[in-house]
């Protein structure tokens, strides 16, 4: 499956080069490297898919199967004051394979907690989460987290951090290094390969964290405000890069953000949460054409309407509920 996807990518790499300038070229290189890696690893030949398959839009028209099912999940935390704190209350959510789903909500509404439950790092107090029909009992390389706190390995250089996952998965050193170097270039850190995390700025660390997770090709990306610490310019660039990767690999993405713009721009679905207790307020399908180009989208009245509507809903919830 993986090899076929990669084959498709390499087959169509030229399309991206035309469309997306620099980052597209980096990606093309990256994908080619992936193909080589998977060939040697699984001993499979790469089947190139028809280009029409690549062109087909991947919105709700396609009958997609559920990859992640969250079923009546609640999470209670024991706080230091010995009081029970209901962080998540009765969350049910189904995420389709290949979907880009954003979780939007005020600070402290349980977005990170929900992500940790899907990641298998935290087991919910009640209810359960499933991946491909199997109950999630722990972390695994099929789900790649990008944490709000970066959590880089400080004793490894940038390159060492990015190579860690592929090496762990048994990719040979030379291949892992080549792939990782391409990824580092993609996130705009070429020249910083031998820097240690303490020598990087916050935004740079965040980009390393993103590259480190992408490096081991998880099927599902769990991203916790991955662009929160970036300047507007880098943020936009990485949003575009993430969309390019996603449009090619069709990874399922669960993306936590504070930014309404970002959520609408990137997602197929926006899950709006409310606070105390953390609940799902509403799930909004974002029916905008893909591939999305930022400059076109900003002028699109449909995009503007989504942003305004969602922001209005937030204001209403602020008025309704207790404001912190």
């Amino acid at each position, binding site marked *: 499956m993986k090899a076929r996807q990669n084959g498709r990518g390499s087959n169509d790499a030229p399309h991206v080069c035309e469309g997306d300038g620099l980052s597209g070229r980096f990606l093309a290189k990256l994908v080619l490297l992936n193909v080589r890696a998977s060939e040697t690893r699984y001993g499979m030949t790469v089947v190139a898919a028809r280009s029409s398959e690549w062109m087909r839009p991947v919105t709700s028209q396609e009958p997609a199967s559920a990859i992640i099912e969250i079923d009546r999940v609640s999470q209670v935390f024991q706080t230091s004051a010995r009081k029970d704190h209901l962080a998540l209350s009765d969350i049910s959510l189904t995420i389709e394979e290949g979907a880009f789903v954003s979780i939007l909500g005020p600070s402290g509404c349980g977005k990170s907690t929900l992500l940790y439950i899907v990641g298998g790092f935290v087991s919910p107090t009640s209810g359960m989460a499933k991946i491909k029909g199997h109950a999630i009992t722990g*972390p695994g390389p099929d789900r790649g*987290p990008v*944490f709000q706190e970066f*959590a880089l*390995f*400080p*004793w490894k250089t940038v390159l060492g951090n990015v190579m860690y996952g592929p090496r*762990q998965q048994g990719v040979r050193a030379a291949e892992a290094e080549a792939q990782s170097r391409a990824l580092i270039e993609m996130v705009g850190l070429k020249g910083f390969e031998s820097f240690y995390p303490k*020598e990087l700025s916050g935004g740079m660390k965040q980009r390393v964290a993103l590259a480190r997770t992408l490096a081991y090709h998880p099927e599902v990306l769990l991203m916790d405000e991955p662009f929160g610490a970036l300047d507007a310019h880098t943020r936009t660039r990485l949003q575009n890069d993430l969309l390019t990767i996603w449009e090619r690999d069709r990874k399922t993405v669960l993306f936590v953000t504070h930014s309404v713009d970002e959520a609408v721009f990137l997602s197929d679905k926006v899950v709006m949460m409310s606070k105390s207790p953390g609940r799902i307020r509403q799930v909004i399908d974002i029916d905008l054409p893909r591939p999305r180009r930022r400059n076109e989208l900003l002028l699109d009245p449909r995009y503007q309407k989504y942003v305004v509507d969602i922001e209005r809903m937030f204001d209403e919830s602020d008025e309704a509920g207790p404001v912190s």
Partner: protein
Amino acid sequence: MMTPAALTKRAAPVLACIGLLAVWQVASLALKNDSFPTAIEAVRAIPDILGDKESLLNILASLRRMAIGFGVAVLVSIPLGLLMGRSRSIAAFFNPLLMVIYPVPKAALMPIIMLWLGVGDVTKTLVIFLGVSLPVIYHSFEGAKAVEEKMLWSGAAMGLSPAQRLVRIVLPAALPEILTGCRTGLVLALITMITSEMIARQSGAGNILFNALDMGQYDTVFAMIIIVGAMGIFLDALFERARARLVRWSEPQFDMPLSFS
């Protein structure tokens, strides 16, 4: 070409030594006490000790016990400390035990150990082992406890098993703290080495020192103190060098000056 600042930094320890010896010299000349030889007399006695085969063998025996005691202690204490830091039940089991042992001077245990194991190498090495273990366990424990949870989660997501996470994430992440404990342990190894030889005389640097004291050879006593002190300074400097190299990635970027220089 060295800058004046770098030159001062290099020369500072040498100057400190010379200063100390000068004060000593003046003080002993002023006191005119038999049991307080001058610095020059003491320094003159050093080549005699180091030239004597018997004394050299004694000092080497001490160093051997110290190396074994320190090495075994580090090899046992680091894994134990790390396990305690990551597992609440292991910590709950060992913590009370260590809390009881911690304040007891290890040399005070020597009489019992001597009773059981005799006055030979085993007893002395065991005392050194006990002296080194506790700071190393404690610092490994603290270091392992402080490892950021998300770092372990990242490792788990990449497919590292719990054992692999302990070796490949907790150990390197806690290394700066562990090495701080080892440095304390090294100094304690030297201290317990001499103390153990003072209690169970038979061989070693401490043996030379206290035998000389009994026989009133005060220049030898002071010369031995200088030799043991120099050994400590040398070992500590060597260790510090290795430590700085191993944890370069964690050293603070900017020095916070403690002096007005």
